[in-house]
């Protein structure tokens, strides 16, 4: 009984830990002009107003940033799922030369400090005339999200019994059809996770977007939000309201797929 109580207590403590920062942002966004600095612990006070939310939508280009972000994230997600599901399948089911090398190189891409990629990325993109173009972003986002996605898709395929395909092949299915009709449907949870990761990678990415996008008409949400944050005069109220709204789509996404999350996220064995 005491143990149960302790477990409850621990869970409640961490619940507060995980939710409080977002409540704090909510509190800041509901305060007036000088939102950030106020010595109160209450989230909603008598002076709370939704002014910041209203001006976010009426006085800034928030909706445009939102549209750009949605476009970028959708395309990236689509590319990520298409490429990760196919190549992970090949890695999982077929033995070929250099397969272990390839698996390890996926892991190795995660080891390079991302900061040092900025300058070379810029050089490639400007040579390809992809500065100020969403194509540059699609290319970089889907490629940087891919290693993890391929890795985790492969781990999921590994858990699917081979007999499933063997039966299909005996029935005369081609290999592509087997993959498409048999394997993909049963891999839905892992596909959802891949989609989620690709989406997250592009939705909240800032550093590369700042290099690639220079036209304010093309700004994505993180870039737009940062423009509230001038060197010496941040508009905290607007920033907090924006931050909250940026987090909501991801949260909704997480909640709607949470049933796949547990069954789909397999990082798998490392021995390849």
């Amino acid at each position: 009984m005491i143990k149960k109580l302790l477990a409850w207590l621990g869970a409640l403590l961490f619940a507060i830990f995980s939710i409080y920062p977002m409540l704090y942002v909510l509190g800041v966004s509901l305060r007036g002009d000088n939102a950030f600095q106020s010595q109160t612990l209450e989230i909603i006070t008598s002076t709370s107003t939704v002014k910041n939310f209203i001006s976010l939508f009426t006085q800034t280009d928030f909706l445009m940033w939102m549209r750009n972000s949605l476009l970028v994230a959708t395309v990236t997600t689509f590319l990520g799922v298409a490429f990760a599901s196919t190549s992970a399948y090949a890695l999982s089911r077929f033995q070929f030369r250099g397969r272990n090398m390839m698996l390890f190189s996926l892991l190795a891409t995660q080891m390079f400090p991302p900061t040092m990629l900025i300058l070379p990325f810029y050089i490639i993109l400007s040579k390809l005339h992809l500065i100020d173009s969403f194509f540059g972003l699609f290319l970089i986002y889907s490629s940087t999200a891919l290693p993890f996605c391929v890795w985790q898709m492969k781990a999921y395929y590994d858990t699917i019994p081979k007999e499933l395909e063997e039966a299909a092949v005996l029935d005369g299915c081609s290999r592509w059809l087997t993959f498409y009709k048999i394997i993909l449907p049963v891999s839905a949870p892992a596909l959802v996770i891949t989609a989620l990761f690709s989406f997250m990678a592009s939705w909240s990415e800032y550093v590369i977007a700042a290099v690639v996008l220079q036209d304010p008409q093309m700004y994505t949400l993180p870039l737009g939000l940062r423009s509230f944050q001038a060197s010496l005069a941040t508009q905290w109220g607007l920033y907090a309201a924006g931050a909250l709204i940026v987090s909501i789509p991801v949260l909704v996404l997480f909640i709607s797929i949470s049933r796949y999350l547990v069954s789909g996220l397999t990082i798998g064995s490392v021995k390849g």
Partner: protein
Amino acid sequence: MTFLRLWILWVLTLTTNIAHAEKMRIQIWHQMIYGHRQVLAEAIQNFEKENPDITIQATYRETEELRSSYQAAAMGGSGPELVYGPSDQIGPFATMGIIQPLDGIFDKEHFAKFDPLATPLYQDKHYMLGALVGNHLMLIYNKKLIATPPKTTDELIAIGKKFTVDLDGDGKIDRFGLVFNYTEPFFIAPFIPAFGDAIMKNNAQPNLDTEGVRGAFQFILDLRDKYKIIPKECDYETANALFKQGKAAMLINGDWSWGDYKEAKMDFGIARIPMVSQTGRWPSPLVGTTGYSLNVNVKDPARLAATLKVLNYLTSEKTQLLFTERVAVLPSLLSLRENPAVKNNPLLQVSSDIMTVGTPMPVVPEIRAVWDSLRIQYQKILAGSLTPDLAAKGAQVMAEAQIKNMNEIVQPDASLWIIKIIVLLGTIWLLWASRSGVMGFIKGFWGPQRFVYFMMLPAFVGIFAVIIYPFFYNIAISLSNFSLRTFQDWSLVGIHHYVEALTEPKFYSLFLKTLIWTISNVFFHVTIGVFLAVVINQVLPVKTFWRTLFIIPWAVPQYITALTWRGMFNQEYGPINLFLQRFLHLSPVQWLSQPFTAFVACIVTNVWLGFPFMMIVALGGLQSIPQSLYEAAYLDKANAWQRFRHITLPLLMPVMVPAILLGCIWTFNNLNIIWLVSNGGEPGDQTHILVSYVYKAAFNLYRYGYAAAVSMLIFLILIAWSLGSLRTQFKKEQKS
């Protein structure tokens, strides 16, 4: 035939029409604050009305980011035509060769129309046309509280003491005599010459081991600890907010902030920063300009002409007047100084008087090293780990070393030839060794394995196209002398930077810190994650609800997380300290100004961010543990701990190990959190881990070659470590 001819004609007319109708697009990158941006937008609109063939695109970037992205852009051969920023950017930009001198474009008479401060010289050339003059610090006081501002520091302290009060008697100070962003050396710079000498001598040499620096350091310490008229911790935002809320009687800030206080409908006055009583000298704020520089890549005559048209318009009387009227800046054109908008503005008049005791802002790139070493040493004094005397000595040594590093042009050494030979031999060997592999690979496209190839290729082509080039590019610059002085024409020099990095004790201490960072983060991620997973799985009802609740930190974008937690750790206003004071009756902790607590703050933030991932992985692992095992254990009367120790843990491990491996790699390389929570390594560069150190070396100190070498070392460390852990894992699995 006629049809074809007509068609061609049609296409031709169409294309010429398009070419004719296509407008010239001129880009400007700037760092104007919000109020100024709106005036700029209006000026641009006016310009576009007058010049329908040109469109202007103004892009806002934060000051530091403007620098680094402009460097990358200009280096890549493009970038905006005009870059707008403070005058101290021309030193580095001109040295890198990414902005062009304006002397061939404008004649002497044109420059003479401007205040000399607005046309700073660097190496006897003009690189900037200032749009305004000022950017200087001054004393701003709340007229409701203070009628006449203090003239001397003795008066300042007396008035300050009078207004530093605890209004409601709760032992906490509710109003301060003076507030300012005193952790930033720029804000104490005016005091330095008032106590002794200037911070630079002979134009480009640091002069920090002086009475001036010691005196200024001690003065701020006294204000904080002896007279207690400034808050214990105070950054720009805090100072600004305190002043605006009437919780501070006086403030030291620059002319750019006036608009903010006007908008808040404050009754404020400005004055010189009080004369230092001990020496009888006035503090001397740095006076500079903010203006436009011309990108070196603008060469096409038509484009240059259009750009100059824009530049002339934006520095014209009309535009400057617009800015003066709207946001009260001092125009740079001398002809406007007698204009009623300037003459009748009391703020501008007092401000001109303040400028007479000012010092022109140094524009040489070396100033950056001076600020950086002052900041590092000074923040150590504030944290109590150095005396002003030692700090001044240390700052001088450090600035000299940084300048030496910055200006160094490394010459090729023997190792370059060895490397070239090794690379050559290696390539030949690789080609020879892989000839059958490559042939087999190519043949495979027609073989039975074709399916595998087509499945594999898209993803790997994408990954390698994006990763391979940057990777080799980095290897190349890590072996080169790429830095401030060789920005446009770097060459390979050998392993110099690797030797330099590996012989510095700093590298090892940073490595140790990175290890502590990684281990403590991953430890908490995993323990919290597994704990919550087990509790959700075995104890709590409504599993989905709890699961969703604990996922929240994962769903929030990282940069938002970082800035939110930075706010929560604020000494004065952060909910963490408010909680400690109100409910636990502890004294507030200066989280972000002590190296240890600042590092702890970064870890707490990252723990918050990372535990949900591990929790989800663990939940997945728990699902696959058969219930029957627990039932058997129950029959054997095993207690909860034994069940966890002998069933859950061993069966969970295979699922957790790869997640831990990835977690370690991600945490090791996590720049965002450290950089944003500690504001770039504050206090005093003591919260850096390896990646944030690399970032700083490359983008703040222009040491690209060195930064690339360190990042290659990071990469090698991680490769070695993960190969090692994979091997032990493999052995374990074989044994069992």
